[in-house]
């Protein structure tokens, strides 16, 4: 008995309640002298429908999580469970095989010992399925009866419905917030474990990065956990090289689109730019690794550099810059377009040319929005993984030469998590510490950017 059935029941019963409540509300309207109810009949209807459906859905969801455990327990309590080994892998597979056969997901058991468990499983499934349906229906009827009895001509159904709707919306937003907090908590937990093995000072200020996942985990060599080269590589690729590409190109395209392009062209170019934002980053990664990086190496060779790296910071940064252009340009576009037309007219009426107006009035007025866009773009760039994983190297160099190979925080997170180290080895745990730092930095950038945007909005309202 699946949760889908319970949901359908909830919806069906809710609909019935809706119709009944509406009919009831209409009779109020006909009976009452004033012909003015405290709320429209539809609100009465929704009030009852929500009181039926929501408790049912909540119970059905909870039940679908609890029921499997109850079923397993009752199977284990049955005499057929004696054939099961005490614990271990075999016990688990036998149980899941029997369950698969009982639900019809598998044609037969592979392990013949499990055959005896199929029947108890089938019984338990149907028993708890029936219980689920009955309780769900009961809850629905109770909710419906309780709310239906409250319906009166002067019942403020409207405010009640509004309140319920608000509560639902609040719950929805809480889900996102709680998920974020959960992620953060797990990150913090592992980070603390890591800092128990390697001191934060060594991690944050050390200049040599080369964790050895095979080394003794109990006594890690802290001097191999200096993350400065990673931070530098991240900033150099994501915030310097990429931005040298993205800021001018993004700004200029935004200015062109808002101030010069005719509407027909704009209607084409703007979506095209937005498509650029939708290209999966792995595709950019191919491009960086297969096209741009070799081209840069060939150019370096042609200019006489000996032995240039085939995985240069420049290649990853350039491609990342192109990827980021739409972020910069769409924020800049929005904020330039948000500068009131009156400002532009005022400047033009003074005899300023279009480009003077852009440079001296529009861009300064839109600057907070533009800066915020750039900050969001940087936070996006330094958190970007695919391009650097494919195009940057894993060699942690502390260098200012863009042709050198460098690595970034995200690349090392991937490398450490997929490395050979066991899960509680400091090399593996360092990935969480790196992730935590990255999280804090991007969070800070986003926070500042949003504040700036907000201030900017207020300025024109």
């Amino acid at each position, binding site marked *: 008995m699946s949760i889908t059935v319970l949901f359908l029941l909830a919806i069906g019963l809710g609909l019935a309640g809706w119709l009944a409540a509406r009919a009831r509300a209409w009779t109020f309207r006909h009976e009452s002298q004033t012909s003015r109810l405290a709320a429209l009949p539809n609100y009465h209807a929704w009030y009852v429908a929500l009181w039926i459906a929501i408790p049912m859905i909540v119970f059905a969801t909870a039940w679908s999580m609890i029921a499997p455990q109850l079923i397993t327990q009752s199977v284990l309590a049955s005499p057929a469970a004696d054939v099961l080994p005490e614990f271990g892998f075999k016990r688990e597979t036998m149980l899941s095989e029997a369950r698969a056969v009982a639900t019809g997901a598998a044609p037969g058991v592979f392990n013949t010992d499990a055959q005896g468990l199929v029947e108890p499983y089938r019984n338990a499934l149907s028993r708890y399925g029936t219980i689920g349906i009955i309780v769900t229906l009961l809850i629905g009827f109770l909710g419906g009866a309780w709310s239906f009895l409250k319906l009166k001509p002067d019942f403020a159904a409207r405010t009640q419905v509004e309140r319920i709707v608000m509560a639902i919306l609040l719950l929805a937003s809480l889900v996102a917030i709680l998920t974020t907090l959960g992620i953060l908590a797990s990150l913090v937990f592992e980070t603390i474990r890591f800092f128990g093995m390697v001191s934060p000072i060594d991690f944050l200020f050390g200049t040599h990065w080369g964790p050895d996942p095979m080394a003794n985990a109990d006594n890690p060599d802290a001097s191999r956990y200096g993350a400065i080269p990673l931070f530098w590589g991240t900033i150099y690729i994501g915030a310097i090289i990429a931005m040298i590409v993205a800021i001018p190109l993004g700004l200029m395209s935004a200015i062109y689109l808002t101030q010069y392009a*005719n*509407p027909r062209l704009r209607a084409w170019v703007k979506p095209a730019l937005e498509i650029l934002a939708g290209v999966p980053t792995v595709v950019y990664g191919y491009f960086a690794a297969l096209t741009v990086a070799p081209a840069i190496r060939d150019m370096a060779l042609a200019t006489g550099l000996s032995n240039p790296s085939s995985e240069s910071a420049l290649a990853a940064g350039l491609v990342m810059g192109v990827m980021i252009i739409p972020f910069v340009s769409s924020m800049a576009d929005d904020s330039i377009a948000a500068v*009131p037309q*009156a*400002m*532009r*007219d*005022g*400047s*033009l*009426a*003074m*005899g*300023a*040319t279009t480009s*003077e107006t852009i440079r*001296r*009035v529009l861009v*300064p*007025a839109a600057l907070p929005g533009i800066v915020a866009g750039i900050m969001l773009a940087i936070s996006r760039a330094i958190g970007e993984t695919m391009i650097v994983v494919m195009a940057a190297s894993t060699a942690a160099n502390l260098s200012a030469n863009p042709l050198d190979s460098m690595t970034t925080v995200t690349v090392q997170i991937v490398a450490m998590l997929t490395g050979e180290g066991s899960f509680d080895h400091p090399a593996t745990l360092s990935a969480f510490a790196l992730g935590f730092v990255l999280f804090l930095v991007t969070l800070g950038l986003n926070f500042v950017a949003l504040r700036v945007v907000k201030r900017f909005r207020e*300025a024109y309202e």
Partner: protein
Amino acid sequence: MVTIVHPNLEDTDAKMSARGVSVYYGDKKAIDNVSIDIPTKYVTAFIGPSGCGKSTFLRALNRMNDTIPSARVEGDIMLDGEDIYRSKMDVVQLRARVGMVFQKPNPFPKSIYENIAYGPKIHGLADGKDELDAVVEKSLQRAGLWNEVKDRLTDSGTALSGGQQQRLCIARAIAVDPEVILMDEPCSALDPIATAKIEELIDELNGRYAIVIVTHSMQQAARVSQRTAFFHLGNMVEYGRTSDIFTNPQEERTKDYITGRYG
């Protein structure tokens, strides 16, 4: 449509003159065949019901309609006898000579000082900081704003009150020393006191600049202007001395409008 011009206008020196001007927005005609002379020494008021094309015509006088892609101007408009649409005068020069003040005050989100210095800077009218300071002070003084803002020149122009902002915009316009100032309902967003200040200012400036003001207030037109043009449905119905228009209109429609029978 016959345009009735009072025959007894003694002044013939026209700063700007329009001949057979029509303005279109796409296929829609917003101004139909208007001819008018804007005198050098007087304030000219444009009056008429909403949507009759006053702003459209005003914007044709400094080519602000160029910023609207669908707008198209036919006919001749001269500034000191030079065709502003077809001679070698470009819009930048034209707008330096024909300034504009808008209905809603629109100071730039810069300091008060920078707002005034904007025009002189882009037209290269001041050499060095001292000269620029002098221009800023003179413009603010002429606009009657100097005493109110002289201690806070670095504050943002947008932090001023509505009336102050509008005077700032007028100061900004006169900082480039234009020959004509076009004002499109400059007082419509202001209270009576701020309005009185602006009207005083217009009186002050009268004679130094040719001024054109669009207004919905008959009293204002009567108070500040010496010439009045009445527009209706894209036509200029009547043009003459303000005193004549208000006391002795020749056209039935003018009479109806100024006596408030429709609007």
